[in-house]
Every structure is written in structure tokens, then in C-alpha cells.
């Protein structure tokens, strides 16, 4: 919010005062770096990522430091989280023998969720996943995992046969189906996985920006006050929608990861 904060700090950019609506743009997603550690510059998104890592690690460390048989306090919440991931995400896709993927999926789910939640927490107010590089890193990691695992378990030819030929397809459609399936499973999957998370967070952040900027911009001692109040109410409703979307996107990313990993173990049925 660099240029917009400057306009607001000037104090006079309201409607009827000559300046146009300071609409949110892609510039709102670029932050000047705060400090550099060697060649790596840390700005707000990078610091938010580090903060969310600390939060997730600290929470689960505190939850399972001294586990009791009857859980109470943080352990209760931690168990609820882990059991949610295990029963809703892991068991339907990977079965009981896939429990060794539980730490990875729990970390992935809570990392993405805490990062998304930062989009509606005051002062922070930026979902780090709305910078395209971060979902790309996550999706690239998932891609390496399921491609590497599939090639290791089924061999190169076997895994590509699993990817390219859905079970029960007639022989005469294979020349058309194989290139489409290979392209879809090897190249399009990581792309849509990353873009789904990125675009959801981008669109949500832009919506919040539009309505908060509108609330400020319309705040004049005229009919604008009524519009400003309406815009504020809509801002609250959009924030509620964002709560749903943030949790949903973390859930979808994790469950698709589990699906792709299960596809690497055996042919999808």
C-alpha cells in the first residue's frame, strides 16, 4: 500500500476534492525491502512468511511438548488440528499406510492457513501467498515429490504409463489421450496448484483493498458518508468471506497434494 498510503497521508484525497479514486493496482503488492542479509532482501512478505513459520512451529511445539493421555489446553487444539488433517485429508487419499506423510501434510496445511490468515489480521494485513513466487515454491516442492516418488516406485516408463493412460480407456483413443494426459499431469498440475492459491489470495486482497479505500475515499460530510458506511459494512462481509476462502484454499492445496502423492504410489482407480 505504498503509493496509496502516501495519498491518504496527504489527507485530502476524498471524493469531490479533485483527485480520482486511488484504485488498487499491482503496485500495492510490491514492497520496498526493509533490510538485506547478504544478497537476500527481506521485505514485508518475506518477514510475514518467517513469522508464520515461527507461529506454526511454536504452537505445535507447545502443544506436544509433554503429551498427556487426556489432552488439555494447547494439546487439545493441536490434536484437533492433526486429527482433522489425518481423517479428512490423509486417510481418504492415502489410507492407513500413508500415515508417514502426516507431518508433511500437517505442516503444509497450517503453514498455508496461517499465512492466509495474516491477510485479515490488523497491522499485518498482507497474505504472503499473494506474491506468486511463494505458491510456486510450494507447488514446485509438491511436483518434485510426486514425480520423484512416482519414478522411484514405478519406474520411469511405469509411472508415465500410470499418468498417461486412465484405466479402462479403449485403445483407439490413446494417440489423442496420451499427449493430453501427459501435458495435463506433468505440466498443468503444478501450474494450477500454484495459481489457484495465488489467485485466490490476490483477488481476496484486492477486494479488501477496494472496499477499504472506498470507505476512506467516500468519507466526506455529504451524501458520501452514507456510501462510506455502506462500503464499511461490505468490507466486513468481504472479510468474513475471506475467512472461509483462506481455510478452504489451505485445505484444497493439502488434499490435492495428498491425491498426487497417492497417484505416485499406485495407479488411480
Amino acid at each position, binding site marked *: 500500500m505504498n503509493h496509496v498510503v502516501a495519498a491518504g497521508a496527504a489527507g485530502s484525497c476524498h471524493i469531490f476534492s479533485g483527485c*480520482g479514486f486511488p*484504485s*488498487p*493496482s*499491482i*503496485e500495492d503488492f510490491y514492497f520496498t525491502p526493509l533490510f538485506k542479509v547478504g544478497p537476500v532482501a527481506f521485505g514485508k512478505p518475506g518477514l510475514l512468511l518467517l513469522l508464520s513459520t515461527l507461529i506454526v512451529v511454536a504452537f505445535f511445539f507447545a502443544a506436544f511438548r509433554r503429551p498427556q493421555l487426556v489432552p488439555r489446553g494447547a494439546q487439545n487444539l493441536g490434536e484437533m488440528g492433526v486429527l482433522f488433517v489425518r481423517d*479428512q485429508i490423509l486417510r481418504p487419499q492415502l489410507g492407513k499406510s500413508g500415515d508417514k506423510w502426516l507431518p508433511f501434510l500437517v505442516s503444509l496445511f497450517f503453514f498455508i492457513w496461517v499465512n492466509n490468515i495474516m491477510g485479515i489480521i490488523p497491522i499485518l494485513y498482507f497474505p504472503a501467498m499473494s506474491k*506468486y513466487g511463494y505458491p510456486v515454491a510450494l507447488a514446485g516442492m509438491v511436483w518434485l515429490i510426486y514425480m520423484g516418488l512416482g519414478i522411484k516406485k514405478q519406474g520411469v516408463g511405469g509411472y508415465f504409463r500410470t499418468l498417461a493412460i486412465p484405466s479402462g480407456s479403449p485403445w483407439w483413443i490413446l494417440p489423442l489421450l496420451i499427449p493430453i494426459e501427459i501435458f495435463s499431469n506433468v505440466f498443468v498440475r503444478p501450474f*494450477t496448484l500454484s*495459481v*489457484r492459491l*495465488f*489467485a*485466490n489470495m*490476490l*483477488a481476496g486482497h484486492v477486494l479488501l483493498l477496494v472496499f477499504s479505500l472506498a470507505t476512506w475515499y467516500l468519507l466526506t460530510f455529504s451524501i458520501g458518508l452514507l456510501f462510506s458506511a455502506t462500503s464499511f459494512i461490505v468490507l466486513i462481509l468481504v472479510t468474513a468471506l475471506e475467512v472461509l476462502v483462506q481455510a*478452504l*484454499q489451505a*485445505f*484444497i492445496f493439502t*488434499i490435492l497434494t495428498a491425491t498426487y502423492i497417492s497417484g505416485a504410489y499406485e495407479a488411480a482407480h
Partner: protein
Amino acid sequence: MQHLVHLHHLLYVASGARHALAAVAASTPGTVGNPIYYHIVNLGALTYGLAAIGPGVGIGLIFGRTIESIARQPEAAGRVTGLMWIGFALTESLALIGIAVPFFIK
């Protein structure tokens, strides 16, 4: 191209919209007033409008079928609701790619 230029000169004079168009070109997100892009219609907004047709139909189908199936068999509500959320997110992602593309493809 010449006809386009004459037409827009006419529009400028006729409606006095010179300042408004300049303001639009100056405040358009992310571009430097590319003349062909934003003169008549905001292509970014049009992109999203077209991109939202398919997922609109798709999401309506998903939720409608879910409601139907829960009405037929209420015991399956938990399973069906989980699948509904997965289908919703996958369909919604196409509409959201449509809203994100004008930001980075100019």
C-alpha cells in the same frame, strides 16, 4: 488506424472527454497508457467477465447437485459436502485465473 484516430478526435471535441480519458490512461493499473489497449473498453475487465461464465455455470451445477443429493439421501450429507468443497475450489480456480491474468499479462 487512421479511422480510429479520427473517431477519437471527434469524440474528444464532441464530449469534452479529453481530461477524463487522460485520467483513465494515467490511472489504469500497471500499464503506461497503452493507447490501443484502453481506448474503448477495459480489456482486463472484459477478460474476467468472459472468464466467469464457465465457472459460474459449473459452480451452480456443483451446489445444485449437492443439494439434490442431500435431499435424496440425508445420511450421505457429510461425504457429499466434503466433495462439494473440493469441486467448488477446483472450478473457482478457473475464474480466479481470469481475474489474476490482467495483472501480469498486459
